[in-house]
């Protein structure tokens, strides 16, 4: 039984590979900037957007992208006034999930949709979605490459970067907007609740394994792609959910990286 014989499996591998590159690339900077929680929060905000989109008869992916990108940019605008406020972010998380639940409640066939939004449905990805994800990833990675140099400096030494005339707020808005896109894409694989496993896990593991920026970045992307492809394969043979395997591999890799340090 070869997984590649099946159309849905080929789509799943493709989508997972594309999304993992984007998730790990943005995730690397997210971890470097100490904003992992913001990525997690954006996933929840995205749930409300996707549910609203589904209820309004639009595409859930479209609603998801719109709200996470806007949410990310908004977080960037609020800046440090928001970053240290766990309670504030937590409240937004809870409200977002509640709103998502409300919108889904308006639709009759909500249970299936809710599960796939929350926990992902990579095996249900069709060719059109793969293409959409590829377009999002290409545009996001290109933008990230464009701001990478100032973003790295601003992440490592914000005061000095400001003194050199870098516009920290604008960088933060642009970056978190990209994180929003990455979250929306990641949610297609693992769902809004588990984007952490795809974005933050590989980056955190990589930063434990090397002190070099370039190597760490490459390692994060490699780990994320390997983790996703393995998870899909394992799910195929075990019939357990892909998302479970992603979280298991993500946690396992992180723990192994901690032990190897």
């Amino acid at each position, binding site marked *: 039984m070869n997984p590649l014989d099946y159309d849905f499996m080929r789509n799943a591998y493709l989508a997972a590979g594309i999304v993992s590159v984007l998730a790990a690339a943005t995730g690397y900077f997210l*971890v*470097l*900037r*100490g904003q992992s929680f913001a990525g997690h929060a954006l996933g929840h905000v995205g749930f409300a957007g996707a549910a609203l989109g589904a209820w309004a008869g639009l595409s859930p992916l479209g609603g998801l992208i719109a709200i996470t990108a806007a949410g990310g940019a908004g977080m960037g605008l609020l800046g440090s006034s928001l970053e240290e406020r766990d309670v504030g972010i937590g409240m937004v998380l809870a409200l977002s999930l509640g709103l998502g639940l409300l919108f889904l409640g308006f639709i009759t066939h909500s249970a299936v949709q809710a599960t796939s939004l929350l926990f992902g449905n990579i095996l249900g990805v069709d060719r059109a979605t793969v293409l959409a994800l590829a377009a999002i990833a290409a545009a996001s990675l290109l933008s990230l*490459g*464009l*701001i*990478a*140099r*100032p973003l*790295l*400096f*601003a*992440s*490592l*030494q*914000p*005061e*000095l*970067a*400001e*003194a*050199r*005339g*870098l516009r920290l707020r604008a960088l933060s808005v642009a970056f978190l907007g990209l994180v929003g896109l990455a979250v929306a894409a990641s949610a297609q694989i693992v769902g809004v609740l588990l984007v952490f496993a795809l974005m933050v896990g590989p980056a955190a593991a990589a*930063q*434990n394994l090397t*002190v*070099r*920026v*370039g190597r*760490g970045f490459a390692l994060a992307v490699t780990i994320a792609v390997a983790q996703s492809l393995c998870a899909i394969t394992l799910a195929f043979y075990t019939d357990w959910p892909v998302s479970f395997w992603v979280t298991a591999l993500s946690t396992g890799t992180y723990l192994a990286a901690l032990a190897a340090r």
Partner: protein
Amino acid sequence: MIALRFDDVTISAGGRRILEDVSATIRSGEFVGVLGPNGAGKTTLMRAVLGLVRPAAGRIEVVERPIGYLPQVRVSTAAGRICGFDLLASGLGAARFGLPWISRAQRDEIGRALALVDAEALAERPIGSLSGGERQRLLLAQALLGRPRMLLLDEPLGGLDPRRQHQVLGLIRRLQQELGLTVLMSAHELNAVIGIVDRVLYLGGGHAALGAVDEVVTSPVLSRLYGAPIDVVRAGGRIFVTQGARADDRVAAE
């Protein structure tokens, strides 16, 4: 030759006047200690020299350029797993868009700066594993990138024990003399810098006084600065600045 001149500079922030009519001329190759209590405007003064804060009145003339800057809150804690070399590399040409590659020439420039402060070995280690003194050496190397003519060092001795303070201060003094730099270094502990700096710029009560330690850190000068009685006590080669006894207290004591 003049390195830096403040001409009746007034700086306000949030409706509060931080510095008022500050005038001072700093000469090239001078090591000036910027002193004063917390909130006296030491950081604001440096940011104004960098052009990050615009004076409400007056003029700041910067002759010695480029400026190397060591800000007060320096490295974000999340970056602690990155090695020193990459930290220094991140600041090169960072205002330009694109991927953070560095050229061979830039790599050599980092090597030169690290060698100046004897920190080549430190640059391989993650920043989070460095002691306070080691970290300061690394960040001094960063301030030396781009071959500055003037250094603005904001509290480089903060959080260090007296022995490490002494080492870092000695290093700054050596760099300043070897490279012929003009250095403005803020510190809130006056005694740490006595005997090392050429002159002090004392900030207090929104005003400033520039001169040798013995000229500036005296009861009449500081009392005029604050507009309130200040006592300066010298004991065992150390200087203590305290709020003076108020006149009515004295009367009561008599």
